[in-house]
């Protein structure tokens, strides 16, 4: 029996085997093999054009993340602290969240035009809602008994917010930021797929147009690694905050 701590390696081997199998079935013109893709990816990171695209995407993603987090926190905390407003907004936020935001791309383009601001806007409309929803629920989910205890200690509203509400709600808020940041990346890339002339998303579309399968897969692989590392970083922070080891 293989020990459990080798599971990540097991997963990697399985994915590579599946990928290789797919190449054998579908043919190299449909799927580039893992080896070809990795060689291509290494060649790609040595080109300056790739780093220009990456910087472009990175900037859009960073801007969109900052706006999503700030906006989502403000909205979510406000709704969490105001019972009535929260009750009114809850289902509205829920249905806005479930709208396929992708359908709004013509609207975004008409407002922001092609370029950086459209990409950022696309990232924000994807990321801001989950952060707002998670932080609203985080504040509302603080057990009333904690607040009761604080009132028995005759604490001021401000110190209740700092010493009780914030630490109790923080893990949930970080979970919201994790989900929101992932969706912000998704939104930013969608923006680039549809409406950009630079960036990794645009590079993907360019590769699709010329049927460069190795290029498509190499870019996808790097996107996956980037997204997965951000995800696990935030996951780690969240676990630490929940005091699970």
């Amino acid at each position: 029996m293989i020990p459990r701590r080798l599971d990540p390696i097991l997963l990697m081997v399985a994915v590579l085997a599946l990928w290789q199998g797919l190449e054998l079935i579908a043919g190299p013109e449909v799927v580039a093999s893992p080896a070809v893709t990795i060689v291509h990816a290494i060649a790609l990171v040595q080109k300056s054009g790739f780093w220009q695209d990456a910087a472009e995407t990175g900037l859009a993603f960073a801007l969109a993340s900052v706006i999503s987090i700030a906006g989502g926190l403000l909205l979510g905390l406000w709704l969490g602290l105001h019972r009535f407003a929260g009750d009114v907004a809850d289902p509205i936020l829920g249905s806005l969240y479930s709208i396929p935001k992708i359908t709004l791309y013509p609207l975004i383009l008409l407002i922001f035009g092609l370029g950086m601001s459209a990409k950022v806007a696309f990232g924000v409309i994807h990321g801001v809602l989950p952060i707002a929803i998670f932080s609203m629920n985080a504040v509302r989910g603080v057990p009333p008994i904690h607040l009761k205890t604080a009132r028995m200690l005759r604490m001021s509203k401000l110190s209740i917010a700092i010493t009780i509400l914030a630490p109790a709600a923080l893990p949930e808020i970080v979970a919201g930021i994790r989900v929101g940041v992932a969706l912000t990346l998704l939104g930013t890339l969608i923006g680039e797929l549809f409406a950009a002339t630079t960036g990794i998303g645009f590079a993907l579309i360019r590769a699709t147009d010329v049927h460069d399968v190795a290029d498509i897969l190499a870019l996808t692989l790097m996107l996956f690694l980037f997204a997965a590392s951000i995800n696990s970083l935030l996951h780690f922070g969240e676990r630490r905050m929940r005091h699970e080891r």
Partner: protein
Amino acid sequence: MTRARIFVVAGAFILLEILCRLGIIDRVTMIPPSEMLVALWQLIAGGRFDGDIAFTAYNIVAAFVLAVVGGFVIGGLLHASPRLRHVVEPLLSAYYAVPTFVFYPLLIVAFGVGRAPLIVIGAIFGIVVMIVHTMQGLDHVPPAVNKSAAMMKLGGIRRYVLVMVPAATPHLVSGIKLAVAYSVIGVVAGEFILATQGIGKRISFAYDNFDNRTMYGLLLLLLIVVTCVNAGLSTWEKRLHRRFGLR
């Protein structure tokens, strides 16, 4: 509460209407909501897009069914095999951090332009959320309920069908609700990128030709349908949660 909610939503629409009518939002960017409604009515009554609507609806339903059935089966298998689950867990948790439809171009290469790549992209987009919710639902079956089933000599597939799955229904419905949203996103996004017909294709065509009435009419149609389906499933979900005494 409901009144306040209607007030907020209606207020947003009226504000938008006024801004459009006053020309603060120009007509090239957005037409007034009232005109969108008229445009929506005309394009439904005209029947010009019946073929596209049927095409997209078929694809979404097919993708949704594949995602839900596939996700339910895979989720059940992973729940039954904790080791396998531990192996694939990181993949599941990072899945939605990656824009899945970067694979759409590859699917076109593999399946050609038509229904197949759209259905496949919608299904692979929706399947993981169903897998995750199926596993969560089965995880939350209380141990005492499971023990009682064992005392009634229910084992294997009978325990699964008669006890585990019914107990997991609220989570399954949450999964189904999200699978709808994800199937729609997958299919419509695919049609945006490359397709010969479908609502997504018509919207992007209208956008390219500055045909704002058609574009906003179809957008509104899509949003209304999705919102209604979502609201229906949410109501069902809430009712189940209340009946089962879950939070």
